[in-house]
């Protein structure tokens, strides 16, 4: 999941009877699965929660370029290089759709970026882990994009129209990303002993951070209950994590890789796997800025933004000059 632990400002979820008529009409539209569109009335908390969620998702897409960009110049064949470039380009495109979706809620891309750069907004914890070998390009596609899809497929039905439509487009591309990741893993697992060891090592390092992507259990979270009521969240974190494990275990078996969890076993009764929870202390450390790559990732984005100020100022100045010239020419012609 690219948005983790999004707060809603709610202390509990109101019942329909407790709502003022306007809010009640809004909630009833959501309950009927109607889409909410930008110009329509919405509770302020719905708007701010969506901005947090979509903004965090957008930031994840653009910070997410970095761990994969790390291997573009070292991709082992021209074809792999081209595929990885196309994939990272898609991530930037996803960032663009999502910032545009957030803009329909009245927040500019620059404002959201300022919040990212100052640490007021987060991006997914997963991108604070390093990509150390080529197999990590496989593991990121297979596990990280796989986990993202698990969250994003239901979000195609989310209540906010622009977000839902962005998700439809993003999901199509994400499923290609996951396939390319799995394809890298298949190649490595069918390859030399060195390659297979790299693939297992990548799975070992990315397994628990991928489970963390869904966020801690939110069964008792009022924020999640409110987001579920608004249909900007469709499943609980635990439901998504379970689905992800159930989907991924057979894929790992097919590759001949071992999931790094001694407790992992099929539970006939629940029709799913039992598995170990990730180390949630580690998760909170990463969220707090102490992951292995937090400083590099955010530092790289801030540097890119600061170094690019002259470029953005130059384009703005040119646009102003061109507009003045047009006006002058028009006056002269009249």
């Amino acid at each position: 999941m690219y948005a983790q632990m999004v707060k809603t400002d709610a202390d509990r979820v109101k019942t329909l009877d407790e709502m003022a008529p306007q809010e009640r009409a809004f909630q009833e539209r959501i309950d009927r699965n109607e889409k909410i569109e930008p110009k329509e009335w919405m509770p302020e908390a719905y708007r701010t929660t969506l901005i947090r969620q979509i903004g965090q998702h957008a930031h994840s897409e653009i910070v997410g370029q970095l761990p994969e960009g790390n291997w573009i110049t070292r991709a082992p064949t021209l074809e792999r290089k081209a595929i990885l470039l196309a994939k990272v380009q898609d991530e930037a495109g996803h960032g663009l759709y999502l910032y545009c979706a957030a803009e329909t809620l009245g927040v500019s891309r620059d404002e959201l970026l300022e919040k990212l750069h100052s640490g007021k907004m987060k991006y997914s914890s997963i991108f604070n882990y390093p990509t150390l070998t080529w197999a990590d390009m496989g593991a990121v596609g297979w596990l990280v994009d796989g986990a993202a899809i698990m969250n994003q497929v239901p979000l195609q039905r989310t209540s906010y129209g622009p977000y839902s439509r962005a998700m439809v487009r993003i999901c199509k591309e994400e499923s290609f990303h996951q396939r390319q990741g799995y394809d890298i893993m298949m190649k490595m697992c069918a390859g030399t002993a060195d390659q297979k060891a790299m693939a297992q090592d990548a799975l070992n390092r990315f397994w628990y951070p991928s489970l963390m992507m869904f966020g801690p259990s939110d069964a008792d979270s009022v924020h999640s209950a409110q987001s579920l009521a608004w249909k900007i969240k469709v499943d609980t974190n635990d439901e998504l994590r379970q689905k992800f494990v159930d989907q991924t275990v057979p894929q790992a078996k097919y590759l001949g890789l071992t999931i790094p969890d001694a407790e992992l076993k099929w539970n006939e009764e629940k029709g799913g796997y039992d598995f170990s929870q990730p180390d949630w202390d580690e998760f909170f450390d990463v969220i707090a800025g102490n992951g292995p790559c937090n400083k590099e990732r955010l530092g790289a984005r801030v540097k890119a933004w600061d170094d690019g100020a002259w470029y953005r100022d130059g384009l703005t100045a040119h646009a102003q000059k061109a507009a003045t010239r047009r006006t002058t020419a028009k006056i002269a012609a009249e």
Partner: protein
Amino acid sequence: MAQGDTTIDRTALFEFLTRMGDNSLILGHRVSEWCGLSPVLEEDIALANVALDLIGQTQLWLGLAGEVEGKGRTADNLAYLRDAGAFRNLLLVERPNGDFGQTLVRQFLFDAWHFEMLTALKKSTDARVAEIAAKAVKEVAYHLERSSDLIIRLGDGTDESRARMQAALDDQWSYTGEMFLADDADRAVAAAGIAPAPDTLRAAWEKVVKSVLSEATLTIPDGSYAHKGGKRGVHTEHLGFILAQMQFLQRAYPGTTW
């Protein structure tokens, strides 16, 4: 069979094809170094697109080079298993990215040449060359349109953006002359009608460059000195590092399939 195969020395044709392929490969590598680090999200997308086009063109040029050579080498073999001395790209494309202005000026000076070269190659007597050029020129027309537009806007932007663009131009200018110098291989492919003689592209290149730079309010540097050597395998110190990075996996795990 295409005429090129029968009328000229394959060595000269191989040489020419690796020059085309290596230019795309090395510039594509440099451009891809910007991934996720450009001044604005739209540039991240545009740069990835340019790099992707160039890597695609590399596959075609080096694929054909391997075929012409006839020793069973693939495009990947040529890209990943030659050392710097066997690379034939222009020195310009291996120049470091520098600031975004340096990257843009390098791209523009190359795009303007690349477009003229590919346009001429569409009429190549070698059908395979003409076919690759016809595909590539469509992509490169867009590269040139984009880089020209940004050169104009940033040249005629703020004092700082103009100063940076002018400094980039002054810095790169002496690497443009190599595009128009000919050696025996160039003369052989030109004589066979496979490719234009390099100096015949200069007038059209200068026309585009002068027009764009003038609109950008930038001054063309005075010097006519041309750094050279890339086309015969004598490179700057930078290429070795590019290859060390690019070829790492193929070198560390020889014979492995990825």
